[in-house]
């Protein structure tokens, strides 16, 4: 109670004021609960009516509406019970049919809450309303009891019949009793009123794990998709690029061999072409290798890799990468390809005169920002490259934000968990 450097009187005063505040707070909660309890009662009656109508075969169309009302009231109570740090998330869209409702875990937990809150909750809420009124009524009873008709002057509980001042003072003592009850019992009553809501309207234990699993399943599928797309791209690059070049070399060598005896000068020209085709094949092979995993990224660091990436971009790029330590290899590779894709888009579509790549590490996240001064209006549908990058980012639990108003500037922001 913080009484070390103050007198015991101060401590007691604080104790009392805290008690009063707790009592008033509890009353407020009880009355608030009374509001949702009334709603719950209305919803309960509505549900019972709908159920009865279903039994005689005419209620089915009303089921979705009844369910919506149930979810609405439950969400109202969730909102009421939410405290900073302990929010009760809303139940989401209600099931649309009786069959869906029967298997909906949310509905199966909301129904018992509805019954409890519409009865016990309502009763407790009414107590919260009546108790302070009784405090005032009985406490001030000696002041006005004489105004009451003879024989009808009783305490709030209906007895005893007061006939003199002593009796009236006794009633005011009862008022003090009510006050004590308000101060000491209402917090417990308020808690009791909230128990069903906190138990039954909170997400099921493991419920957010279910959501997380669903999210992971989705991003995992997207990651595999991105992976297959990537493999297809590599296959295409090897197949249509490198392999064709080498076949070309073989064809030209065959032609040269046939020409050697007939036309040595012609054969030499063909050999010349064969050699340059072989050199092209090598260059393409290097490009493919670099597009799989850039050697500079594995041998050096992410800033070095980004610098060499910027050097090959036709638009002047300023790289500002301050990343102490290293992230997981797959995260660095993703960061690299995000920047590579962004720079490719800038060079191809943006009309920008300069671009900036900013890389920072904030806690366990790697933050990338690529900005250009082009004409903006970039969308993910324009090129599927950005979509692939988004999938790749989300597979790492990262986020990608593209801001590109018409007229520019275009900004791609990516946040990735470092994983190291």
């Amino acid at each position, binding site marked *: 109670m913080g009484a070390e450097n103050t007198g015991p009187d101060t401590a007691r005063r604080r104790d009392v004021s805290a008690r009063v505040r707790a009592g008033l707070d509890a009353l407020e909660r009880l009355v608030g609960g009374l509001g949702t309890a009334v709603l719950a009662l209305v919803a309960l009656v509505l549900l019972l009516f709908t159920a009865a109508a279903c039994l005689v075969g005419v209620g089915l169309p009303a089921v979705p509406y009844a369910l919506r009302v149930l979810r609405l009231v439950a969400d109202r109570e969730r909102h009421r019970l939410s405290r900073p740090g302990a929010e009760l998330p809303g139940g989401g869209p209600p099931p649309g049919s009786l069959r869906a409702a029967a298997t909906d875990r949310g509905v199966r937990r909301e129904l018992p809450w509805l019954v409890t809150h519409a009865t016990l909750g309502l009763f407790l809420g009414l107590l919260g309303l009546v108790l302070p009124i009784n405090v005032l009524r009985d406490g001030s009873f000696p002041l006005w009891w004489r105004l009451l008709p003879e024989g009808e002057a009783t305490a709030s509980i209906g007895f005893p019949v007061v006939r003199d001042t002593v009796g009236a003072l006794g009633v005011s003592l009862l008022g003090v009793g009510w006050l004590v009850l308000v101060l000491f019992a209402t917090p417990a009553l308020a808690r009791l009123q909230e128990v069903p809501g906190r138990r039954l309207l909170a997400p099921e234990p493991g419920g957010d794990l279910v959501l997380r699993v669903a999210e992971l399943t989705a991003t995992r599928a997207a990651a595999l998709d991105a992976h297959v797309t990537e493999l297809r791209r590599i296959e295409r690059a090897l197949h249509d690029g490198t392999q064709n070049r080498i*076949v070309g070399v073989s064809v030209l*060598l065959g*032609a040269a061999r046939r020409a050697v005896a007939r036309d040595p000068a012609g054969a030499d020209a063909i050999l010349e072409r064969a050699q340059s085709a072989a050199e092209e094949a090598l260059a393409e092979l290097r490009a493919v290798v670099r597009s799989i995993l850039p050697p500079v990224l594995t041998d050096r660091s992410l800033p070095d890799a980004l610098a060499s990436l910027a050097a090959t971009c036709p638009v002047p790029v300023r790289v500002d990468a301050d990343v102490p330590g290293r992230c997981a290899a797959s995260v660095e590779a993703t960061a690299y390809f995000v920047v590579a894709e962004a720079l490719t888009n800038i060079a191809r579509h943006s009309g920008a005169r300069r671009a900036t790549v900013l890389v920072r590490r904030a806690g366990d996240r790697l933050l990338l920002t690529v900005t250009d001064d082009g004409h903006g209006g970039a969308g993910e549908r324009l090129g599927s490259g950005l979509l692939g990058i988004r999938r790749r980012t989300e597979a790492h639990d990262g986020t990608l934000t593209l801001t590109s108003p018409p007229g520019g500037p275009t900004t791609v922001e990516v946040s990735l968990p470092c994983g190291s």
Partner: protein
Amino acid sequence: MRIVIAEDDALLREGLALLLRAESLDVVATTEDAATFLAAVDKYEPDVAIVDVRMPPTHTDEGIVAAVEARRRRPGLAVLVLSAYVEQAFATDLLAQGGARLGYLLKERVGRVEEFLSALHRVACGGTAIDPDVVAQLLARTRPDTRLERLSPRERDVLALMAEGLGNTAIAQRLFVTDGAVHKHIRSIFAKLDLAPTDRTDRRVAAVLHYLDDTARRS
């Protein structure tokens, strides 16, 4: 012999044309996609079309579709399909309607100019040219306990060359034996495999490939 080439890779297209022209063959058009290829077939009425399987826009089987269409427009057009990889299942599908005037070769066979030219001529003259890889795939897929086991090693060699589409004389040259010896081997092979003997090489190729494919499927 009038030839039209359909190949999307510029280097290969020009390399092929260079090689064929150096052999005094008449390359009347080189095209880079299915549409221009079909237009060239209509315009130049070629005898042979050399077609790449994967071409723009989807890089899947545009070449095959275009070749089938070209043959529909110009019956009797010989088609030599070139592919970066060969797939036996694809070859057997291709040969389902008979192998006359049809070839299916790996691209790099072009580099072995003599063999490529002989395959080209064979196809142009109504024969068949099947890539040795396809035949090898088929032979590898057949189970050891089939009738193929009854063939002698030399007969297996002859069978493989027969499946590629080679005629008796070509087989004899490859194996350094006489025509008569090849003839005898072939008779023996057909007897052992219970195939009806035929002297038309295109029917022979189809029969042999069909037989191999069947055995491979059953195993």
